[in-house]
């Protein structure tokens, strides 16, 4: 991982992307953007982010399609994904985990909690990669 972790923000709402970018940059993360499922995959290939924040309701391949494509690719399947969606957790949380996401947040998410999970997810990854297994 580079000294500044890079986070890919995937959301079709430009205002929410901007808000997330401001919030993450203020917390010393690099950010890149994608506004639909197709460009999310393209950006993941090109930018190799350390973490992806993924909305579910997206044009050109929804969040589940993105998760599936990421899982199928050896290079991308190791990138942790945090799902951030307006959808109801009762109906989607389980399937999101089953599809390989590492955390689920409903919009609007509590900023402190979200940042803590982002930090822990990046941190956990360093630790478990360095463990002999």
């Amino acid at each position, binding site marked *: 991982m580079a000294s500044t972790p890079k986070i890919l923000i995937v959301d079709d709402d430009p205002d*929410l992307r901007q808000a997330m970018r401001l919030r993450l940059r203020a917390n010393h993360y690099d950010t890149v953007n994608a506004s639909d499922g197709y460009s999310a995959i393209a950006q993941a290939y090109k930018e190799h982010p350390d973490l992806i924040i993924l909305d579910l309701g997206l044009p050109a391949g929804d969040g589940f399609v993105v998760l599936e494509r990421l899982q199928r690719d050896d290079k991308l399947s190791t990138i942790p994904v945090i799902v951030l969606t307006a959808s109801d957790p009762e109906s989607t949380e389980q399937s999101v985990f089953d599809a390989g996401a590492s955390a689920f947040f409903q919009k609007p998410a509590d900023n402190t909690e979200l940042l803590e999970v982002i930090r822990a997810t990046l941190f956990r990854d360093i630790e478990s990669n360095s*463990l002999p297994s």
Partner: protein
Amino acid sequence: MSDPTKHVLLIEDNPGDADLIRMRLIESRDPVQVSRVERLSEGLEFLEQEAPSVVLLDLNLPDSQGADTFRKVLAKAPDVPVVILSGQDDEGLARKALHQGVQDYLVKSDFCHGELDHAMRHAIERQALLRSLEISRKQQLEFKNQFLSHVSHELRTPLTCIHQFATILLDGLAGEVNGEQREHLSTILRSANQLGAMVRDLLEATRAEAGKIRLDLRCLTIDDVLGTSGAMMKVAAREKRVRLQVSTEAGIPFVLGDSDRILEVLINLIDNAIKFTPPEGAVAVRAARMRSDPDFVGITVSDTGPGITPEARHLIFERLYQDPHAVDNSRKGLGLGLFIARELVTLHGGKIWVASEPGSGAAFTFTLPLYSLARPLSPVLIHDGRLREAVVLVKVNLWRRSRAARVNWKEACARTLDRLQRCVYLDKDLVLPPMAGFGPEQTFFVVGSTDLTRAEIMMARIRGQIEMLPELKGSCEVEISAAAVSLTDLPGSGSTEAKSLEAQVAAVAQRVTEMARAAMASSAKSNCSQGVPEHRTEPLRAQLTPE
């Protein structure tokens, strides 16, 4: 229109009456095909196989009399119109029959020309109408729920936007903010949060109505939940200068509940209580075992507010109810809070009510069942109306290994429990509600009504499911073991034939609880002394039958 032939099932034991009815039916406008049986049992058998257009039913049959007769027919074929042809003119019985879903009640001696045909055709029409009304009612309900769920989903995006940018400004990420600006931004944020809570309530009420709320039942210490609610409401109480007191009766037993949902109910009640209590007043939250029903714990939230009128007491738990005399000038909500509270409490198997005298405060009480394994265990333990000979107790132990795992530990435990639920057959096995909160070590138990082969398969599935969990990867140790528990050597189980099944189940439940507790204690001890091996799986060791 399809085939106009009416298929009539005539349940009538008297051959004379049957002939008379047949003759009347020949006069019918549409062709009629009659199948006649003499006994109710034969009629029910017929209805099992076929769906006639109408049932003509005599009430006094060799094997059934009176109201019982039509009740059994209605239960067997709720969609087939039933017309009673009775020997006596009994207005009371007729009314009862109609209330329970019978279409008509005719007295045999009173038939005049064409009357039976009319009654029969109208009965068929009415029944068809009722069915289509019921179907369209269900469709409308479904549409309404979908609509509400869609609307609340779409409201979330702009709401999130307001929330995000208000916090970005408040946190100074876009430059310095002066005191007055900060105050206005806080108002925006507070309003956005209120709107968010309303959207949540709307969705929650819709879900409750559609029966879509699932509870995550655990063995809980109710003081923990009460404590959390007190901590969460402290600020609101202080701002209003209301004293908030939380207390629990000493030695209160564990309850079975979903802590998040119970917290939701509590927050709701405390929030209301603070809202309606004038400054310098007091709100008290207290949990105690119910004297009237020792299987339940009662939690009471009382205030020193204006109280509730007797008329309002009946309406207060209904949807969209808002107190017309609310003295407080804070914003009203949607009036869904108490409705949701009642739904959640009912789902737990408890009750909620309010006691109040106008002028002297209100006290809301809700009850929760004690943690007892007897009820959930009985379908696992009982087979063919008897206690099984043995069950299998599978134990799954998790240890937190690394520092990094701490953040997601709670989540990892919750997910493990969830996976366990998927490894079992709901009607044959039971994943015990966890005995305690999530410590650095967590033990889960599954009671399976099973033989050794299926237990092996179950263990393999559990292993597979749990090892797949990303939360556990590299951060937890897992140990899975199983033992057979004989149910035949229970104290007093075999010897006293008279002992009721219920008592036997209670005895087994007691013993399973003890074993689970003991196993937890011993594994904690061995863990301390010798450290923990990785991914250890013990084979099944005990015998299914007692030695």
